[in-house]
């Protein structure tokens, strides 16, 4: 067992984990932050996307101990109480989700894009989301939502 500590959504947390515990397991099982999802075992689907030190990463592809000292944010940390983050609001407004399972990963990935590119084109968005699978929406409304959300974030 190893001890690990990090900041998650602005809160300092620490815990005892096995060396092989994945970051996503630490988030879901140890911290009970179940908004971050697991959709595959080959780093393909992006359902587990979070931010670490401001960058979008797939939390199924990292060990918890690798996040030692890191600043982590998850989908649970995005809204301000009842007030949705502009990207969350855009997904709701543009029907960018159906079953909602890919959604936390999509939104975390999208906010990372919007920080780099305040006004992404349709192509930019489709290209950026290449690592996030959605089986429900056909991406059409996700793309709309991300473009609108990015503009709103940077307004």
């Amino acid at each position, binding site marked *: 067992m190893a001890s690990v500590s990090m900041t998650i959504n602005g809160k300092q947390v620490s815990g005892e984990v*096995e060396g092989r515990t994945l970051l996503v397991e630490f988030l879901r099982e140890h911290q009970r932050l179940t908004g971050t999802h697991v*959709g595959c075992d080959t780093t393909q689907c992006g359902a587990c996307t979070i931010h670490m030190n401001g960058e979008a990463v797939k939390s199924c592809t990292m060990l918890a101990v690798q996040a030692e000292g890191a600043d982590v944010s998850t989908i649970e940390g995005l809204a301000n109480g009842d007030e949705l983050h502009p990207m969350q609001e855009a997904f709701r*407004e543009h029907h960018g989700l*159906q079953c*909602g399972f890919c959604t936390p990963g999509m939104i975390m990935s999208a906010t990372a894009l919007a920080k780099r590119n305040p006004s992404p084109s349709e192509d930019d968005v489709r*290209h950026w989301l290449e690592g996030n699978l959605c*089986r*429900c929406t*056909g991406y*059409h409304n996700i793309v709309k939502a991300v473009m609108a959300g990015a503009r709103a974030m940077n307004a």
Partner: protein
Amino acid sequence: MPRDDGIGASVRRKEDFRFVTGQGSYTDDLNRHGQTYAAFVRSPHAHATLNSVNTSAAAAMDGVVAIFTGQDLLDAEVNGLPCGWQVHSKDGEPMVEPAHPALAQGKVRHVGDAVAVVIAETLSQARAAAEAVAVDYGMLPAVGNMTAAKAGKAQIFEEAPNNQCYDWEIGDEAEIDAAMAKATHVVELPLVNNRLIANPIEPRVAIGDYDTATGEHTLFTTSQNPHVIRLLMGAFVLGLPEHKLRVVAPDVGGGFGTKIFHYAEEAIVTWAAAKVRRPIKWTSDRSEAFMSDAHGRDHETVAKLGLDADGKFLALKVQTDANMGAYLSTFAPAVPTYLYATLLAGQYTTPLVYANVRAWFTNTVPVDAYRGAGRPEATYVIEQIVEEAARQIGMDPADLRAKNFISPDAVPYQTPVALEYDSGNYAGTLEMAKKAINYDGFAARQAASKAAGKLRGIGFSAYIEACGIAPSAVVGSLGARAGLYEVANVRVHPTGSVTMHTGTHSHGQGHETTFAQVVAERLGVPIENVDVVHGDTNNIPFGMGTYGSRSLAVGGSALAKALDKVEAKAKKIAAHLMEASDTDVEFKDGQFTIAGTDKSVSFGDVALTAYVPHNFPHDELEPGLEEQAFYDPANFTFPAGCHIAEVEIDPETGTVTLANFVAADDFGNIVNPMIVEGQVHGGIAQGVGQALLEGCVYDEDGQLVTGSYMDYAMPRADNLPNFTVDTQVTPCPHNPLGVKGCGEAGAIAAPAAVMNAVTGAMRAAGVTKPIDMPATPSEVWAALHAS
């Protein structure tokens, strides 16, 4: 003024706040107190005898609570998994229906077939111990595909000497052959409908729990139909009565059919939780999903269309082989028969249709319904052969279709293959789609592509589907072992807010919003005051769940019937309050009025009176305001439409780019256009995936070649364009909302549209032999360079 939260409004979804904030509650998000974890030992071989399963080393490992094998299930009299639909062969014999043990007994029959389950304190302990279970397999030759099944490469079941499950037909073969002999043109086409894996992004999860105090068993599961699971598992597998078995399907992360079926893992965690007296959680990982979720499609077909000199269709003859996999999954036998061949008239007046369908066992994962289930396969056959016919006789494919359409004046229209279409305007959607894609401009676009060294093609798919499945008496006569009605309960609370319970289930379709819109519209209450509850057999009276685009058509109709009853009773209460006759009471926008007077009471007043019945017609009515309805439809519904795809092919690389895709659909009345569009988008993406990307591949020995997202190409954002979707409305004449269903249309229509565009583009380069799906760059390149 229409209300902004009623029928016809694109209301933003009530469920979205929890989903976008990460507060959805999916099955894997639940943990039960004292929970243990299950890991399955799965066969790495496609076909083998189980000589021995030795669990002793594994049982001694850290944290192991229990290990169960097929023998343990046999000893405990746990039955196999039932099949919900019985098909009869053309000679009258029932299909071969071999046992499907929840854990293999004697033999394994596909890669992934479960041999044992290990239950341990932690997931890693369960997995480690599962690796330590020693299984001695006696290798047998394996049947990896239908060709090998037919050739008798190995015999999978004693009771199926030639690996055949059934040999079924519809129509009169002699009559068809006679008509074909008289046809001016006969077009023949061999077609493969590629095997697919549904791949909802949420993998399957099952948690079994047992309450020693009450004797109640609970199963939390990723299911589209919790009551169906309770019925199948309780009555057939475990012998548990309904009042001691609760099945909960909380938020479900996509289903697409593959979460309809009753799976072994559900029965095992439920049964074993009572054995070990601890909750047991099983979470599939994706690799496990590839070899244990039911697959879809997998048909091989030869179709023949006879036409007269004017291009009128005279006869369609179809011979299909359908792969059932290693066992019969819940609805598998119905998919290539009653959900497929009955649709082969399509939108056309073809007077004679004959289909012979043979179903085969193979050493592959069971195949069952996947989005569209049978209807995409039927549409693919019809729309490919019609397009091919247009090319061979030199007619515009749109004109050939229009010439053969069933006219709107001809409905109700009895097809030669059992169904009676009740509404539709096929020329309407064809024209709408042609306009949307600017069909007239295609030649110029094709020329521009050519100038740039590219090949351009356009392809139509004019589909019809039978949804809202369907009158119980009819499906019963066709072999269904269940009824297919739906149930709704409307509970008006004392202050006028409403909770509605539905037996359908939402796993992305937005029922919490759509059903609430219907309630809001009908009762005149704001949508915020309406909650929709589904997914728990302890809360919902009964229900058959969500599949076959049935939720609004059948479940919404049950809701409308329950609302009728609420309104009727509320009118009586209102009449009492206004001292009038209930026949004089009008109800609109949440107000009860008497015409010609200024008397009025609000819905809220009536609700309160129902529960605080001081001034109440006690001799006529009971207090309270809660009503329930079971609705069994009079017919299927028949959504239909026309999708058109335009593709560009780079002959240098074989890459197919979907340049444009338009959909013109007729779903009858629409409650929430935003949600309907979303359903169409998602269906198109899956259909395009089938046409261009996806294909589940087994090798000759039954090894799964495409066992992860690395090998199975899921559509990604950059594979797809934006879609143009529009609708025409011809209401369904036989259900109270006039709705038809929209969930499967895209997956049904898109494959044929895309492939017709691909083969059209390739024909311009001299390739006349159509290629099979998926039209991957290597396939396209090879075909182009072979010519």
